[in-house]
């Protein structure tokens, strides 16, 4: 599952939450997230996070279109 966030502030807060949730020494997710095709910030959610994250939850993501076709 994936979490979609409207802005970096919400994404960063969720990333910090996940770090604390799992007791990690490093941030849970990248500090430079990908965007979906609507420009929302994408975070992959491990199963434990799905029911505790305050964000839009989706099963799959359509990412931004890209120039190359590989």
């Amino acid at each position, binding site marked *: 599952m994936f979490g979609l966030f409207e802005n970096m502030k919400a994404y960063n807060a969720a990333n910090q939450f996940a770090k604390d949730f799992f007791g990690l020494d490093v941030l849970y*997710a990248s500090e430079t997230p*990908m965007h979906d095709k609507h420009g929302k910030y994408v975070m*992959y959610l491990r199963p434990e996070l799905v029911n505790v994250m305050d964000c839009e939850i989706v099963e799959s993501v359509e*990412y931004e279109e*890209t120039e190359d076709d*590989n």
Partner: protein
Amino acid sequence: MFGKLGLGLGLGGGGGGLLPETNAYIARVQADGGIIGDVKSVNTAIKLFKDNLIWGIMIDGGLAREAGSPSYITKIYDLATASRDCSQATPAARPFYVENAIGGKPGIRFSGAQFMEFGNDNLINSTQPFSLIMVFKPKAIGATTYGHTACIRTELDTGMFLNYITTASAYKIWGFGHVTGARLRIDNDTLFAVDTPVHTITIYNGEGWNTVGNYAAAVNGNVIATTGAGSFASTKLSNRIGFLNSSNHYLNAEICEILLLNTNTLTATINAYLKAKYGFGA
């Protein structure tokens, strides 16, 4: 089982024991806190390919993973002596362990946002013959669900050898090649269907990146016709499996094994090895 093939697939070493190289690999993995999945399987691969192995990972070999279920992979240990181990420091970007991926063998599941890196150095140069072998099973294939399963560097500035699977064309395709050289693909909705195990071999003869005829490709033991592919992203990234960051292309598949050999002459041995281990192919 392996020994009946007549290809030296049985356990090596005197009296059926482990090869010194296998023992060294096991010792290295265990000293690092990793675990060994199947010692016989590791020994067989090392026996067959140790003289030609540039880089190789097998999920039933050595790896390190988090506790819990699913169990996320933190490191996969390179079978080759150069020890270019795959790792992923960011927890959300780790693939997870799958107990039975293909033919009863374990795999790692990439489900859309995971990748692992194995250094930045060049694994092959522009005149290096090679065979790149991958055993995997697509789990989802979409227009933006690209599968960059291996990005092998070359001596060129933007050198990067890619393999991917996608539906960017009208077909499910498997593609490979070099950003400034030959770029080829196989179009086949049946071979590359979701939940269909595949092993592929990309063969290069070492006589120039820009000549299409210098490449060949086999799927499940059969040489398959190729067509020209489009452009590749030229951003030079680390050596990695799983995705190509600059273009948001992701892999959604289970990978069991990837081997990079410094020869194009072992195809028959490779096919016999893969069929014996995973139970499918010619």
